[in-house]
């Protein structure tokens, strides 16, 4: 039986922070993974996530969706692009030229087949060389295992765009892995 006690109204602030920790904090790895792949270094990734989490906390009341991860990843992505615009000297500006990255099919050569048994380091470098619009879609799909619909929500694109970017990203990655192994090694040194 409950004993008598002081009846006090719930404190909205602490309800909010408890909700934030239970719902948002489990997505911290996903947030960091995306930020790290976009920024391509630890220091910038930490800045992006820190800023994104602050924004998430600030706008937490407006979160009424059903998927915290999608909501948070969209914030991380926007934060990254906003911060990047503020620091143009980083030279990270790159636009996706749909012509240069047109869908080409080289056809699998015997070299391709062997080169695909690549180590994590080679894959990492190849993935980092992709332009960010292609890199982010691959990271969301292959590492974060998002559906096309989720990727479309995170990147604010149509599902058709997601599908064609993903196709292009995979073809491009395949080319990176087959045609530039020597450069990779030089880059390494």
């Amino acid at each position, binding site marked *: 039986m*409950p004993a008598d006690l*002081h009846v006090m109204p*719930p*404190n909205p602030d602490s309800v909010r922070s408890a909700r934030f920790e239970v719902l948002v904090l489990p997505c*911290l790895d996903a947030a*960091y*993974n995306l930020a790290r792949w976009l920024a391509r270094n630890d220091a910038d990734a930490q800045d992006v996530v820190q800023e994104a989490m602050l924004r998430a906390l600030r706008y937490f009341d407006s979160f009424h969706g059903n998927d915290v991860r999608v909501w948070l990843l969209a914030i991380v992505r926007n934060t990254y692009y906003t911060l990047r615009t503020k620091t143009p000297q980083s030279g990270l500006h790159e636009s996706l030229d749909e012509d240069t990255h047109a869908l080409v099919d080289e*056809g699998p050569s015997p070299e391709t087949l062997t080169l695909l048994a690549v180590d994590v380091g080679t894959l990492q470098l190849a993935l980092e060389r992709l332009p960010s619009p292609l890199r982010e879609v691959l990271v969301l799909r*292959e590492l974060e295992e998002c559906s096309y619909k989720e990727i479309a929500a995170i990147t604010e694109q149509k599902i058709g765009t997601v599908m064609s970017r993903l196709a292009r990203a995979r073809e491009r990655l395949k080319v990176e892995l087959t045609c530039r192994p020597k450069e990779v090694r030089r880059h390494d040194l």
Partner: protein
Amino acid sequence: MTCDDTKLLMHAYLDDELDAAQSAAMARHLQDCPACAASYGLHGRLRKALAQPGLYHRAPDALRERWRLAQPVARPASFQSRRAPLVYAMAAGFAGALLLTSPAWIIVLQQPGADSNPVVAEAISSHIRSLQVQHLMDVVSTDQHTVKPWFEGKLDFSPRVKDLASEGFPLIGGRLDAIDGRSVAALIYKRHLHVINLYQWPADSTATAPPEVQRHGYTVIRWTAEGMRYVAISDVSAGDLKQFVLAFQNDAGTPAANPPR
């Protein structure tokens, strides 16, 4: 389907994003066209290569700690899947044995005001998670005679289920959940627009816990009756939750006497 179509659709096929008709067309094409089939196999392998855990960047501990400390709230004991897997149940057995052999520990855990009480912390995080869309209910019914049989075979006990609509707390459904390392029954009630979760499981000790705690704006009321342990949690006012608990306790013995709604 032509090879040109395949170039784009193959990726949606790999990702299982095609509808049934397109999938079938794609499968047929891959059977007939060795070139496309080879390309498909290659991309399948590429996908597997990308799934290597070494490519995933986990958040550094320092970053995680910063966000925990910035948000000083009860840390849920675990973020495991809501449905307890078998290993979890086994771990529960071990934890149970530990509890039996360490009576002093029980007292420490149930110190009034002990901020680390795992049951309270777990009940709060479970309650919060349950409020996410599609997490609230496994069985949706305002009829206690639908909800109660639903639990049969899913738990090693029969939970007490009753509708309290006449008292202003309509039953809206039930759910399996995990608290304190074991599977528990969760009944969901409404109070106006608020949700009340009522967890119950067989009591394994007669230790008396502080009946009511306020934490992070949630009220948690715990009690033991007829061998069952109950935990009610909600963000309704403490007074309302007490009223709910009293209503539940009042006709504890006569669940069948209530006509189904």
